[in-house]
């Protein structure tokens, strides 16, 4: 049974690029994938570990800039750029984690938001390195072992590989001691401390892991759009990343997938509303938060369960 499922999934993954009518739609699909990775980052940090972060755009940006600089200044190709992005964002993750250990709730949210803003201000003003508001042009497409991912369709497969990697890793982590520690910290910080869990260590781990996901996404983004500037990595984007995980479902494994799809598709689907598009979009998001505090994924899950139950009942009826 598992094998057919995997084959089915693989089939869908392969069919998607064949079905997309043009490059522009392909780009949307690719962005959905990048946002799935970003959503996973905050899912790990906030959904599972309960550390509210409104500064994910900073990690995303750092990852993107690292790749951009390594590629345009040092001529490095994909793999070293990805490694570089991951390492540098991990470092930033530690930098944020240290003060974050001491605060929680609103204060933590504010701290992370401030972190995001400071990083952005540095991006804008540290002109010799980041080229300031002008941004960095001419980033190359990834070249992996001589194979160039120079079209959006080819790039899709590279991104999907990382999406699967990220989701699989998230799934694995949840079922280990680390994952249980994360949840324990989320549920009750003090109690977790009392039961001997190294809260400090796990929190740092959560921040670093979250940062790494964003760094990955940043690298992929930089090499896809081939141009980055500080305007891309604002507070607004941090909010969007947060919404991605919330709407999908905090603390669920597939929440980011659902969230990524909804967050990117919804504004497009609302185009017919013209100017009011974003207002309605925001209102819909608010309604989701208010009505579905656990995210939409649990509802999808229930739906699947009822479908399965019906199917099982039908099977039983047939046999019986």
């Amino acid at each position: 049974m598992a094998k057919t499922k995997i084959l089915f999934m693989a089939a869908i993954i392969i069919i998607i690029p064949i079905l997309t009518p043009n490059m522009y739609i392909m780009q949307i699909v690719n962005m959905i994938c990048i946002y799935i990775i970003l959503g996973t980052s905050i899912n790990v940090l906030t959904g599972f570990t309960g550390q509210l972060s409104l500064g994910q755009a900073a990690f995303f940006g750092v990852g993107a800039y690292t790749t951009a600089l390594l590629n345009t200044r040092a001529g490095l190709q994909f793999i070293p750029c990805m490694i570089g992005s991951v390492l540098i964002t991990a470092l930033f993750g530690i930098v944020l984690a240290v003060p974050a250990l001491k605060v929680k709730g609103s204060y933590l949210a504010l701290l992370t938001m401030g972190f995001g803003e400071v990083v952005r201000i540095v991006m804008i003003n540290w002109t010799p390195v980041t080229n300031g508001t002008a941004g960095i042009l001419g980033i190359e497409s990834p070249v992996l072992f001589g194979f160039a991912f120079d079209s959006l369709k080819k790039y899709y497969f590279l991104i999907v590989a990382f999406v699967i990697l990220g989701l699989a890793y998230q799934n694995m982590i949840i079922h280990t001691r680390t994952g249980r520690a994360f949840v324990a910290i989320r549920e009750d910080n003090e109690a977790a401390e009392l039961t001997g869990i190294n809260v400090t260590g796990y929190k740092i781990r959560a921040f670093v892991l979250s940062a790494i996901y964003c760094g990955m996404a940043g690298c992929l983004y930089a090499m896809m759009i081939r141009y980055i500037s500080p305007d891309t990595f604002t507070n607004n984007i941090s909010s969007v990343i947060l919404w991605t995980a919330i709407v999908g479902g905090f603390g669920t494994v597939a929440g980011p997938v659902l969230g990524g799809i909804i967050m990117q598709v919804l504004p497009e689907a609302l185009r017919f509303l013209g100017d009011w598009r974003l207002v309605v979009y925001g209102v819909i998001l608010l309604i989701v938060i208010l009505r579905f505090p656990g995210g939409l994924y649990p509802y999808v899950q229930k739906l699947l369960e009822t479908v399965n139950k019906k199917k099982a009942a039908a099977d039983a009826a047939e046999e019986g």
Partner: protein
Amino acid sequence: MLFQQVLNGLTNGSLYALMAVGVTMVYKSLGMLNFAHGDTMMVGTFITLTFIKAGVPFYIAILLGIACAGVLGFMLERVILRKVKFSSFVNLLIATVGVSYVLRNTAMVIWGTSPQLFPSMFPQTLIKIGSFNVTPQSIGIILITLAIITGLHLFFTRVKIGKCMQLASSDPEGAAMMGINVTYMRFLTFGISAGLAAIAGIMIAPLTYARVDMSATIGMKAFAAAILGGIGNLWGALLGGVILGIVEAVGAAYISTAYRDAFSFIILFIVLFVKPTGLLNKKIENKL
């Protein structure tokens, strides 16, 4: 140069203080930061501008604008926050972020994205003090802020409803037992907080133009000021705002103009690290 910068710092600081008061009131009442505060300020400012452009006499337009902002604050509490109250804290915070988003985009559709001129309530003639030029604007903002905060202090300590509001914030169970309608007090808190934001916006808009993104930096600085001075503390908000304003102005003049906005965050980091309760608070706040 130094005098000019300190004066600027005091002026901006007063505005941060006004915003910080609104933030701190809501925090005390609800236990969390209202991320829609900055955009409430922006909307209040634009509503006032709309009234002014429609021909309403200037000061009446201001009062109307403040009142409308107050209503917005009420609605926020009633419609959104009450519903989310029993859900997780994270959702509550996100809800305010969502409201902020909706407010900003609605403002963009209604009033457009270009900055607009906002008339000042102060005369434009410069006052000469020694060899320096001082605008009535600066003096006016500082005085008005002081007046408002003093007024609020008196309200919270002498006037019955004010005292009830204070009690409902610091000890909800005790207040409920005394027959105070805690929910209603919270409702009022939001409205007043929103009105204060509108006043701040109306005073700052002549300097920076009314723009739909005006909440961007001032929102966070208000939080920083409130936390610096001591969250939940009225005078803390004033102190925090003033310190922030001056540090920012002097820092911009002598260290770096480009990183001006970063100073408030740096202060925030330091405060959160060293003394999260802020300057004027003694007790450790247990609230989230």
